[in-house]
């Protein structure tokens, strides 16, 4: 950090000092005893109840997916011209949820935001689970998922290659790369923590598992040097991914001619929406984790407040995007585009448009108030609103744009079936089941990263400002 400016003789006034990222006395040892003890203990009763609930929902969703595979996607409400409906809405929604984790682990890492350390591990795990949920939908949406390997460009006896000018193929590459990179990022961060677990545990079952997973990590200085370099490079590369993955998802729409899709604002609009929805989900999950696992000393009110500020900023950008959409429709003087835009707010599904605007733009404005940024009920209200709003935003984009396009004789309303609702619910079940399992099996906080930023963790270069010095990467 800026050690030259902070003269030891003139201490900074309190209001200029960076807020403490931990509460109470936290030492590397106490951190291990607090975080790494979770996988060693049997979970409490309420955890089993939670897993039973999410597992039931997951099973329901899997049953609905099985039913779909067996009978075909006629089981869904999709029709002509609404060829894309819940399947693609859910896909876009879940890919978006993943973006918060990548933003926290990549962009905030490069910007040296130290508050990311305590929440990065959980957010990255949520990224991976969200991308898993997202990947499910294009797969079942193809109808015959056992032939989904046709999406891969491999030499085949049909003598065909995939169409590399199709945004749908770009999407296949973007999402699979995103998953691979997120998993790599997550695993690298976990590696030193797994080594800590390995050396703590006395269990004959866990010890070999952790030994294998930690690859014999021994924390030597030369290893750390390469490790830090790799982490920095991964962060830089993942920064490109945060911006690119949802841009490519938006190309699925923007490169088509459907009114309401064919817009140049789509890539940034989608990326902002993704980060917005992702942060809301991270806030909700972190509140539960922090309360139920007693992590208030590590995930402080300050952490939640900063995340709520990000949500507020993204909400304003969403509002701006909606205004630009409206402006584009008006300024284009294209009656069909204007009709589609009016459909968002006054057509058959006009309620969905208003719900989107209320949830995404109006409700988050509460976060201007400091009290709301620090109060559970208010921030949960906002986070829930954002989650609902962002789902309905994709509903508006997909269903409202498709159900009335250029050809009035082809217009058709859309009505989801029970199977559609079941699959949507099931994806939440899958996500939260995975989150719950993760919370008990692996360290929920990146202990190694946090240790390096604790007061006194870095050598004090004689000036005695160790507490103010930054993380391992400063």
């Amino acid at each position, binding site marked *: 950090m800026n050690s030259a400016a902070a003269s030891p003789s003139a201490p900074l006034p309190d209001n200029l000092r960076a807020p403490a990222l931990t509460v109470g006395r936290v030492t590397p040892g106490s951190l291990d005893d607090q975080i790494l003890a979770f996988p060693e203990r049997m979970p409490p009763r309420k955890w089993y109840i939670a897993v039973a609930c999410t597992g039931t929902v997951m099973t329901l969703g899997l049953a609905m997916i099985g039913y779909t595979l067996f009978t075909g996607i006629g089981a869904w409400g999709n029709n002509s011209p609404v060829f894309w409906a819940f399947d693609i809405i859910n896909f876009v929604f879940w890919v978006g949820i993943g973006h918060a984790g990548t933003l926290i682990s990549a962009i905030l890492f490069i910007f040296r935001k130290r508050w990311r350390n305590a929440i990065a591990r959980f957010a990255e795990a949520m990224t991976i689970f969200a991308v898993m949920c997202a990947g499910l939908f294009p797969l079942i949406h193809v109808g015959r998922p056992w032939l989904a390997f046709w999406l891969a460009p491999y030499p085949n006896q049909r003598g065909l290659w995939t169409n590399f000018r199709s945004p749908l193929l770009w999407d296949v590459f973007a999402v699979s790369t995103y998953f691979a990179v997120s998993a*790599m990022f997550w695993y690298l961060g976990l590696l030193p923590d797994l080594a800590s677990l390995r050396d703590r545990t006395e269990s004959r079952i866990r010890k070999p598992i952790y030994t294998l997973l930690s690859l014999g990590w021994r924390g030597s200085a030369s290893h750390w040097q390469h490790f830090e370099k790799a982490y920095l*490079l991964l962060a830089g590369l993942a920064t490109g991914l945060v911006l690119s993955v949802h841009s490519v998802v938006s190309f699925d729409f923007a490169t088509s001619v459907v009114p309401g899709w064919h817009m140049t604002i789509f890539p940034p609009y989608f990326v902002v929406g993704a980060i917005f929805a992702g942060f809301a989900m991270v806030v909700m999950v972190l509140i539960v984790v922090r309360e139920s696992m007693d992590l208030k000393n590590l995930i402080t009110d300050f952490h939640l407040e900063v995340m709520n500020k990000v949500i507020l900023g993204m909400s304003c950008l969403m509002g701006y995007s909606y205004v630009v959409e409206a402006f584009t429709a008006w300024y284009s003087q294209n009656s069909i585009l204007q009709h589609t835009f009016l459909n968002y707010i006054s057509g058959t599904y006009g309620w969905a448009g208003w719900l989107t605007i209320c949830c995404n733009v109006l409700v988050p404005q509460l976060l201007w108030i400091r009290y709301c940024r620090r109060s559970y009920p208010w921030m949960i209200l906002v986070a829930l609103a954002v989650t609902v709003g962002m789902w309905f935003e994709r509903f508006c984009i997909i269903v409202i744009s498709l159900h009335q396009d250029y050809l009035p004789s082809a217009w058709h309303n859309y009505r989801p079936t029970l199977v559609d609702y079941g699959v949507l619910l099931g994806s939440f079940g899958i996500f939260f089941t995975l989150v719950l399992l993760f919370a008990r099996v692996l360290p929920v906080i990146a202990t190694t990263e946090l240790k390096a930023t604790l007061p006194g963790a870095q050598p004090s270069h004689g000036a005695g400002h160790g507490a103010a010095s930054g993380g391992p990467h400063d």
Partner: protein
Amino acid sequence: MTDLNAGSFAVLGLFDSPDALMAAIPRVRARALGRLEAYTPYPVHGLDEALGLRRSPLGGMVLVMGVLGVVAALVFQGWLSAVDYPLVTGGKAPSSWQAFVPIMFEIMVLFATFTAGLGMLLLLNRLPYFGHPVLQSRAIRGITRDRFALAVEADGGLDPAAAASARSALEAAGALDIEVLPEPAAGPLFTAEGIQRTLAAIVAACVGAGMLMYWAVKLMPVLPPMSHILEQPRLNPQAPSTFFRDGHGMQLPVPGTVARGFLPFPARTPEAAAGMVNPLPVTRAVLARGRSEYQVRCAVCHGALGDGVPTLTAAYGAKPANLLAPANLALSDGRIYGTIVLGKNAMPSYAADLAEDDRWAVVHYVRALQRAQHAKDEDLP
């Protein structure tokens, strides 16, 4: 373990704070013989410089692989889309590269990330390595928690003198605990037996995977729901059906149904039809039609020229009529038409095979054959 006379890999001193570690490094470095290595629970600032580590070459590796990813993706997509399988989409030239950029970017990121992650782990850090002496030491529990270790190491093993001097140097630098680590046992993966076992495991895994694939390929298409593509809501000819009362899938038309081109024929004998007039004009198209039908239906008995010399084998026994015979030349169009519809002697009815227009076209063609075989000078063009 503390026997200094046996070959030892390293002497390791434990410290309880990063400051103590940093202070010890120059002091031990000045006295010890061997390579200095530190073991810490997290990356410690300034350790690289203090230990004199070289910069990590990872950045260059990642750059090279990233560029390689971009080039590979461009060449791959370009070759497939413009050369091997030229596919014109959106009116773009086959070689338009702009559409390849998203996948070029993704492949670049993929190559670069895996180089960074796996290159760091496998190439630079030489992991996985489960046999390292430090992992078996007492100190490791502290190293991955909150202790800092400084080790004097040598790959070939420290000789007793070097170990002793390292020990005293670490003691003088204030190490809380000192441990002598033995030489690592040869990695189990690199003995002859280990290599054999590994190879055997790989072969076994390949055979297992191959058998699984074989059965998957065999079974997949015939299992539901994959087999649903074979089950189609369609009734094959002659198949039974529970839909109709009589259980037949194929049903007769409703009584009185008249098919197009098959109006009921009132005459009972060919002679009774003699007065009918050929409604078709004599055109090239009609004659071509008539010739085609004649050659399919009639020529087999009446001969290609209409002379009653059949292509049919003589064993058939019937004696087909010579259409060129004078008696037949005199027949009216309607009479020939009646014969086609009703048949004569061994000749069956062709009413079901030839529609009305086809029959009249055949009549025209028979007239053309008769005229061709009895051509007069003025018939020549």
